[in-house]
């Protein structure tokens, strides 16, 4: 009774429990501490520190060459870091992996390939279920070398989740998929998250990421530039727009607004302060709209800053 009074609703209660677990460190699955990596004297990752909580989904972004794939490979232990450490909670768990460019051996059939991968995990009985979930049951006798990139990724994704990993790492998982396959992928990924599997994903399709990820890690030149919850990002920066009299144009443009067909617009980190300022200057406006920034807009802003520097 007391708990209900204190927290008003179940969502707040769950949030507080989640935060308590995080603070206590019990929910952290992997800690990456000050990891650096260089190739032939060229520094690719510098002092990377972050953690992945159990059940958390992290979106890893950055321009080409920012170090995303290197970081994924270090987490997967395909590469060894030059400096720093990785600490798993307990024994290193099984990691599911969907590679960016799946160049698999071409002369196994889809069935043989799936059967082999599942057999390594002692789950060979699930082959047909996996092929059905990947929509590839009719192609079970086709050689994997004859599958399209999208089909291969569907298969790799279903294989990765079929063995119930604790962490799922995906490098551009939807590249090459058609619309229907992407829709199915999103649905399945939501199921995966509901199962409590942590996810570390790179993608260029940010509309998907808003729904599917909890946190954004943005890499720039091998350094983490942003590490923030996506919800925060979307609440934080807002787009304010309104219509007003032409006489205010000069003032508004000097305040950083853009104007298009009588509509004034500005991206701001403090919409309330912006609104107060308009009121203080007696600016009469109509059709006022304050919208949260989309992840896409936010990342575009980061990329613009990067190009600027």
């Amino acid at each position: 009774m007391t708990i209900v009074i204190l927290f008003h609703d179940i969502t707040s209660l769950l949030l507080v429990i989640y935060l308590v677990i995080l603070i206590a460190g019990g929910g952290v699955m992997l800690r990456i501490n000050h990891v650096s990596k260089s190739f032939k004297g060229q520094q690719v990752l510098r002092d990377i520190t972050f953690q992945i909580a159990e059940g958390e989904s992290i979106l890893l972004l950055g321009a080409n060459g920012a170090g995303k794939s290197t970081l994924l490979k270090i987490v997967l232990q395909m590469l060894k870091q030059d400096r720093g450490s990785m600490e798993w909670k307990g024994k290193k768990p099984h990691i599911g992996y969907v590679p960016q460019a799946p160049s698999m051996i071409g002369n196994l059939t889809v069935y043989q390939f799936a059967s082999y991968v599942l057999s390594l995990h002692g789950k060979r009985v699930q082959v047909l279920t996996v092929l059905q979930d990947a929509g590839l049951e009719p192609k079970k006798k086709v050689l994997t070398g004859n599958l399209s990139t999208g089909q291969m990724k569907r298969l790799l994704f279903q294989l990765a989740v079929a063995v119930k990993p604790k962490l799922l790492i995906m490098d551009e998982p939807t590249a090459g998929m058609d619309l229907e396959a992407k829709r199915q992928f999103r649905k399945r990924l939501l199921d995966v998250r509901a199962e409590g599997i942590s996810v570390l994903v790179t993608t260029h399709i940010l509309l998907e990421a808003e729904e599917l990820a909890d946190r954004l890690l943005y890499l720039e030149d091998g350094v983490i530039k942003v590490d923030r919850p996506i919800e925060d990002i979307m609440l934080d920066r807002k787009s304010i727009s309104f219509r007003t009299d032409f006489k205010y144009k000069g003032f508004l443009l000097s305040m950083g607004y853009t104007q298009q067909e009588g509509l004034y617009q500005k991206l701001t980190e403090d919409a309330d302060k912006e609104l107060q300022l308009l009121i203080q200057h007696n600016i009469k406006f109509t059709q006022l709209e304050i919208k949260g920034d989309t992840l896409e807009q936010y990342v575009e802003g980061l990329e613009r800053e990067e190009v600027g520097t």
Partner: protein
Amino acid sequence: MKSIVVTVGMELQRMIKDRYFLCFSLLMPFIFYILFTYINRGAAVDGIEFDYYFLISMTCYSLVVTSVQTFGIQIMYDRMQTWMDYLFTHPLTPSQYFISRIITQLLLNTLIVSLFFLVVNAWKQFDRPLEEWIMTSLWLLAGSILFLTIGILIAQSRKVETASVTANIVVLGLAILGGLWMPLQTFPNWVQMIGEWLPSYLFARGAWTIASGEGIEIFNIIILTCYFLVLFIGAMILQYRQRS
């Protein structure tokens, strides 16, 4: 252990469908055998009838091609095409993978020896005791491990093209100068002097001496063991360097 068994099964499925293996390791030596035994019918080398002598030569050649070229280049491709990286995200360690590949290759080598011996013996009806067939087969299988290390060495190349060219040169050199295509006695003296020290010649010579009733010479075993140790250590050093 389960991972190794499953991987061997998968690799066997894969290899049996491999056109390169079927063509260069099975079909080509068999065609050579038909051709050369027809040309040299009735001949003998070191007191061994040419048909049997050349059966040993072509079986050795097939084992060299499979171990150096097919095995080496395939490992190279697997490494370059991220297939290995993908595999190691599953319950399979690099050492389990390499053990599986070597077991697969030894099974394929057993298949090659059995196939050649059974098919050619059914055709030519050699009058040789079973123990000799078994002894020769065991020698060839044990000796083929040396050529697998050459395959592993070639697989350390940085480019597929380099590996492919190197494998071709090594296989042709070992086959021709080692007397697998033509008896070494038909070459000039200076070529014979080089050929006698090549692992391919020493490998086949072990089987030829079993056929002539002399038994395998200790010197032969020592030299082949030295070759194996040098190549094996070389392959391990290169592999370590590449990983680090």
